[in-house]
Every structure is written in C-alpha cells, then in structure tokens.
C-alpha cells in the first residue's frame, strides 16, 4: 500500500479536479495500438493535438521488419467522399524501426488513423481509432507575450505618428512648412487616433477573452454521470450507475439538440462483450473492482455490489459508441455501511466481475496472486513520463513453471492504471489503449450504415461469436503504454487462469522526462 502522504495528496487532489475535467481517456490522451498490420507486427502511438483542428504526431514501430513504405491517413467515421492520399511516415533518426508522421485532424469526435505498410512480406493495414477532442488550455509564453507587446506598442506609436504626419504635412504642396494650425490639428488627430486605437485594443482584448471562453466550453468533458448504492430488504446491494447527461437523455430529440447545438450520440456498442466496463477504486487505491453493469434502460445500468469496505470510491465507466467514439465517464460514490454483505462468487451480476484488495508490489518485484501463483513485473529501469513504459508481466505457477493464461473477456490480460490523485485513469489491453470495438466499428462500417444501430447490431453479434475463440497464451502479458506525466501510479493487472480471474497490483513512481535528461 502507498504510505499516507496527506500534503502531497491534498495538493494533487486539487490538480485532480482540474485534470479530470480536462481529460479524455482521463488524463491519458495518447492512443496506443499493438498488433498486426497484415504480416507485420506494429506498435502505433498517436499523440493527439489537444485542440481541434490540430496536428497529431504518429509513431509506428515495426520491431521485426524494415518495410519499404509506411503510410498513415486520418479519416472521420462518417466521411462519404473517400480518404485523402496517405502521408508517408519517415524513419526516425537514431531509432531503427520507428517511423513518424504528422497528420491534421480537422474535426472533433471519432476519427481513425489507418497505418499501411508495404515491404518484402507484402502489405498490411491496421486501424487505430482515436477520439479527437479539445483537451487543454495553452497559456501564452511570457517571452512571446513580451515580444508581441513590444511590437504592438511600437505599432501603436507608429500609427499615431503616421496619422499625425498625415494631418500635419501630407496635404501640403511639396516643400511647404506646416502651419501652427496644421500642427494643432495633427496633435488633435494623434490624440483621437490614440483613443481609437486604445478602444480597438480593448475591444480586441475582450474579443480574445470571448474566443478563449468559447474554446474553453469546447474542452472535453465526459457525459455527466452518477452512481448510487441501492439496498432493498435482504437483497444484495446494487450499484446503480446513470448516464445523467441531458445531451444523452435527449439524444434522439433533434429539436432539443438543435436548440442547444448538442451532439447526436450514436448508440452504445459492446466492447469485449460488455456495454460498460466500470471500475471502482477507493480514494486511497486500497480497493479495486472491475464490474460490468447491465442495462436497466438506455440511461441506467446496474450491478451487484462487491463486498466493499467503507470509503469514497472513484467510479470510472468505459463506454463505446457505434461511431467508434469511446469515453470514460467519471463520478464517485461513498460506501458508508460496514461491512456491506455484498455479493459472493455465485451472486455476481456478470461472471467476469472481479475485485481486489490484496498486497501491492513495486516494479521489479513479484506479488502472490490469490491462487498461489506469482506475478512479476520485470525490469529495473526507471519509468519516465512520455516514454514507452515496458509494462510486461510474467505469471508463474507456485512451482515456478510459466502459467497458461486464458482469455479474459477476449484478451490475454487487462491492466488498469491510475495516478494516486485520480487525474490519470486508463484501461489498457495487450492491444493498447484503443477500444477493440471502436476498431471493429471502423473496419466493418459500410456505406449503407446510415441508420443508427445497424452497425452496432452487427458488431455486437460478431463480438459474441468471436469472444471465445482466442487461444490461451503463455505466461506473460504486456501492455503498450507511456505514462502521461510524472507522479505515483498504481497498476492492477488482471489475467485469467483455470477459470479464475487473478489480479496483481504494482506501485510505480514515474519520473519527469526533463529530470531524466538531466
């Protein structure tokens, strides 16, 4: 467990409020994908611009091959006029196998980055879905501000001087000296010009503030949500989660949306066979639960509550829309009763629900899982913000032999990363941070998918039919990811073995890249 650090925690909680509001995947906007692009294994990182329109930086790592050509192209989910020509990703100097490119992302919402490789082994493509939204406010660099102000002052004085010269001399015949009347008129004109320019500058300042305010209103905020605990008689307590956002509630009311310039949300689709992946993490990170509430209606979701000790819990709910847009809803819930009876293994709402309150290891150490096997996060190199973290975990049986891991909701493993202040939360898979359902939504979208829900039906049917076909994997699992900022993080790694869901927890300090460079 992390030792109590009230001062640091208090300061970071303040930051957390800001960052949660400002974050898409909750503080971790980069999209990561690891998998196959045809015959090539690739790891793709998309650094999103944080403004719309903006320029995204794309990195493609091809560890085992040297393709002749790597290209990237962006497109919006509902584009009808084809795709623009792809941009060539060029090799990054000093890092063999890494290719980089910049792409303009013009519109907010669900976009895809298609990575294509061509080489001796043929050609292949991979789709990386990204959620392009405004994420942050950029303050004016003081040096730039001073420089612009100095030039602005010069231009102000220059314009006043020019107007003065114009009134004083410009209409005089060549060679004639200005009269005192000309000079007086010039002074008056200069005074008037100064006042007008001052008014214009004031208006410009007000305009700038207004533009900044308008931009701030576009900064991403997850749909409003709330979580409640409901206990009726002797029934097990239920966690009731609601998407309480009016825009979601009125998503089919075109006149309501038109009046408020609202988003016409597409329906939810299943990701790993679930409409919602909900995580409960106590503020001190001492307890973690991964639940899959079922829909009561399109707004309310409900799940049996695990046997949680009291405390305030952060609630993160991952959902995916038919457009490929994914987001993490954020709220909190306070558990007061001690102890809640909670659910037993036989009372889970969903067989894939799990929770954990066990020991926490450090990077490089091992932790014993509930079935006696051991999970190890190998490696001793310090983790640096913004650089690939090397999240690779090995699972051994009690006798030291590698464990055979079964697919857990179609994946070899699930990792949940949270910064201690809650300002970063991300649900990662071996395939990256991107939603598999989003990826499939782009891959399976057809030109005729103009009716909301049609694509979702096909996707959900396909999800169910393919969930069980993933083969068991050898006893290790890795996750492509870079921590977005320095701080103390906890990682919960979940795997499935012999039909049991096993969770290991690790704490890791993440250093700033700047300090590392020093």
């Amino acid at each position, binding site marked *: 467990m992390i030792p109590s650090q009230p001062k640091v925690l208090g300061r970071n909680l303040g930051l957390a409020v800001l960052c949660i509001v400002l974050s898409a995947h909750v503080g971790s906007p980069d999209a990561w994908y690891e998998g196959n692009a045809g015959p090539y294994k690739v790891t793709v990182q998309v650094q999103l611009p944080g*403004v*719309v*329109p*903006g*320029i995204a930086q794309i990195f493609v790592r091809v560890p085992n091959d040297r393709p002749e050509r790597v290209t990237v*192209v*962006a*497109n*919006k989910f*509902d*584009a*009808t*006029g*084809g*795709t*623009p*020509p792809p941009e060539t990703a060029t090799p990054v100097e000093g890092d063999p196998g890494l290719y980089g490119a910049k792409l*303009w992302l*013009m*519109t907010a919402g669900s*976009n895809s980055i298609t990575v294509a490789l061509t080489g001796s082994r043929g050609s292949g493509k991979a789709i990386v879905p990204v959620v392009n939204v*405004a994420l942050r*406010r*950029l303050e*004016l*660099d003081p040096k*730039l501000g001073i*420089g*612009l102000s100095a*030039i*602005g002052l*010069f*231009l102000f004085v*220059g*314009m006043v*001087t*020019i107007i003065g*010269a*114009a009134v*004083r*001399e*410009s*209409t*005089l*015949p*060549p*060679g*004639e*000296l200005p009269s005192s009347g000309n000079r007086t008129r010039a002074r008056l004109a200069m005074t008037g010009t100064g006042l007008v320019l001052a008014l214009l500058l004031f208006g*410009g300042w007000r*305009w*700038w503030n207004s*533009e*900044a305010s308008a*931009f701030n209103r576009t900064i991403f905020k997850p749909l409003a949500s709330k979580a409640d605990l409901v206990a009726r008689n002797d029934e097990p307590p239920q966690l009731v989660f609601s998407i309480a956002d009016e825009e979601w509630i009125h998503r089919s009311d075109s006149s309501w949306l038109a009046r408020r310039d609202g988003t016409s949300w597409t329906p939810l689709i299943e990701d790993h066979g679930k409409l919602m992946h909900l995580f409960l993490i106590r503020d001190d990170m001492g307890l973690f639960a991964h639940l899959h509430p079922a829909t009561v209606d399109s707004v309310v979701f409900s799940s049996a509550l695990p046997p949680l000790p009291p405390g305030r819990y952060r609630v993160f709910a991952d959902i995916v829309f038919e457009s490929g847009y994914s987001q993490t809803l954020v709220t909190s819930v306070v558990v007061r009763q001690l102890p809640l009876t909670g659910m037993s293994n036989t009372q889970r709402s969903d067989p894939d629900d799990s929770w954990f309150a066990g020991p926490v290891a450090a990077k490089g150490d091992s932790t014993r899982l509930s079935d006696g096997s051991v999970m190890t996060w190998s490696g001793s190199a310090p983790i640096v913000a913004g650089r690939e973290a090397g999240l690779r975990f090995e699972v051994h049986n009690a006798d030291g032999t590698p464990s055979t891991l079964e697919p857990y909701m179609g994946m070899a493993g699930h990792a949940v990363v949270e910064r201690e202040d809650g300002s970063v939360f991300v649900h990662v898979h071996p395939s990256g941070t991107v939603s598999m359902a989003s990826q499939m939504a782009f891959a399976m979208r057809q030109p005729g998918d103009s009716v909301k829900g049609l694509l979702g039906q096909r996707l959900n049917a396909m999800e169910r039919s393919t969930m069980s076909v993933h083969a068991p994997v050898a006893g290790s699992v890795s996750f492509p990811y870079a921590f977005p900022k320095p701080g103390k993080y906890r990682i919960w790694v979940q795997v499935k073995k012999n039909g049991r869901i096993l969770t290991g927890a690790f704490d890791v300090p993440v250093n700033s890249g700047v300090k590392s460079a020093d």
Partner: protein
Amino acid sequence: MATSVSTLAAPVTETEENVRSRTLAVEWPIYAVVFASTCILVGLLWDVSWHRTIGRDTFWSPPHIVEQVAAIVAGLSCGWVVLHTTFAGSPEERAQSVRFWRFFQAPLGAWVCIWATITMIMSAPFDDWWHNAYGLDVRIISPPHTVLASGMIGLQLGAGLMALGAQNRATDDRDRKRLGIIFAWAAGIIIGFAAIFIQEEASYGNAMHGSKFYRLTAMVFPIFLVAFARASRLKWPATTIALLYMGIVLVNMWIIESFPAQPRLAPIYNPVTHMVPPQFPLLFVFPGIAIDLLIRRFGNGRDWTLSIALGIAFVLVMIAAHWFWGDFLISPAARNWFFAADKWDYNSRLGPWRYQFWNLDRDASKNFSPMLFLRGIAIAIVYAVIGSRIGLWWGKGMALVKR
C-alpha cells in the same frame, strides 16, 4: 528640421519638364508597392481556394509565399525609400515627404506600408500560437487574422496613397491619367480584399435574395467606392475601380479553377478534382456608374445631400443588379467554367441547399416576408448613406494628399 525643409521650397520658375520629372522622382517604389498590394489579393484568393480544396498547408505553401513576397517587396522598397529620402534624397524628394519622429522622411504611403509590413510579420508568431492554443484556423476572422488583415489592408492603403500622392502632384495630363489608373488598380485591389472578408455571407448567388446581402455590402463598399471615386482624377473612377476589381478576380477565378487538385485532409464529403475558385465577382460596375454620375452631378459643395443620394442609389442599383443575377447564379446556366457557380469545398456536405436561396427574410411561419425584406433594405440604405458620407469625407482628404 524646419530650417532644412524651408531651404527645399520649390523654385519660383521652372520648366514644364523639370516640374514633370520632379513629380516622378520616386516612381518605381509606387510600382513595387502596388505589385505587393496585388500579391496580397492574389495570394489571399489562392489561399482561400487552397483551404477549400486541399485543406492542408504549411508556412511555405505557394499562396503564403506570394503573401510573404508582398511583405518583403513592400517592406524593402519602402525601407529603401525612407533611408534614401532621409540620407540621400534630392531636395525634391525630401520636399515630397512627411517626417517621422522629426528625423526620418518618406512619402506618407511608404510609412503606412512599413507599418503594414511590421504588422503582417508580427501576426505570424501570434497566429502560430493561436493555432496551438485554439486550433488550426477554427475561424477565418480571429484576432491574429485581424492583425494580419490590418497589415494587409494597411499595405494596400499605403500603395494607394503612394499612387495618389504622385497623381495629385502630377502636372501633366498623361502622368495624371497613368497614375490615376495605378491608383484605381490599387483601389480595385482593396475592394477585392474587402469582398473576401464578407464572402461567406455576400458572394454566393444563393444569398442575393436576402436583405442581409444588401446590408453587408452597404456596410462595407460605399465607404471605399465613394472615397476612391472622390480621390481619383479619372473621369469614371468608381466604374473603373469596379471593373478592375472584377477583372482581377475573374482572371484569378478562371486560372484557379483550371488547376487539378485533390483534398489532402479528411473528412472529405465532396471529392473535388480541381481547385475551388472564388465566386464570380460582385457586379460593382453598376453602382460604380451610379456613384460616378451622382458625384459628377452634385459636385463638391453638397456632401450631405450627395451622401443620401449615393446611399439610396448604391442599394437600389445593387438590388437591381444582383436580384436576377442571384437567380442566374444558382441556375444550371451558370454551372460552367465562365461563371464558376456550384463549386463547393471538399468538406461540404452537398445537398439541395446548393440551389436554394439562403438568409431569406422569413416571418415566424418561415415564409418569405416582403416587409422584413424592405425593413432590411431600409437598414442597408442607412448603412450606405453613412458609408457614403464617411467615404466623401475620407476621399476629400485623400484628394489633397500630395506627399
């Protein structure tokens, strides 16, 4: 400085050729800044087309380079004029200049061009930061673009003032006419520049049945057309200026639309294959004729009455010229290279709106309301009268500029 200037007073007797050569002493910079001013408009027309067709650009895209050439040519040539006039100018050149901070000397237009060049350069880092902070060109009219536009319009006005000063000093009819044409060209460039800023609302044929089109054009153009008409020494100044504006835009329109091009950004909803050209220019030649006739008839002594006549005439002639022109532009007959109608951005979701009128004056039941239209036209006339009055005052001042 007063002493030095007094020694530069014109001699009492001069030959005609001496006088002529004196007025033309600094003529090449006039051509340089008018060229720069033209580059501003041409670059902007191409830049708008670039964004509507290709989307993606860089600091070094061809339209941007044209704009940069404009700033460099204007800045260097006017900088040379300042240094030359101040430190090595002939007595005539100094006598035709105004002083800046009591030391530097150059014609008024050169100072305006230098101010404009610095403003344009200043806008670049501001705009770059703006893109990083709020997104890439989220809106065309933004604070940094306004700074840039101030520089551009400053450069164009500076070019006009340099031509105007030479025109007003000219003693020879041939020179006066030639310099008058140069001034009219510079003025036409300004009209074209102003038209770009309201093109979203007031350039498409679809907008020409709504009073908003007439309110916007009345708000912007009478000031310039009337001012330039009064400042010019040509016989048909506003008409000439309007024709030059239309000619410059038309030539660009025909050239631009002939270039094959492909969108480089997503989402593409309209897969264009050639550069999307500017709209067919507004038919300012007709209000131009009205302005010239009225200014000639009223003379110089009745500016308030004249401005009322000009304002009413401008709006009524605009309606007469554009009402049916709007019908034509949205008809199949205009969908060809000559009129370049029905050309839309790569990210336009095409629909029936292409052939419908926009911004119609509708009542609560969504029907076209002649009363609301007439009310809008009345407001447009008020704008045009005020604009004409300001234009007459401004033009009167410009007609006197000799340095």
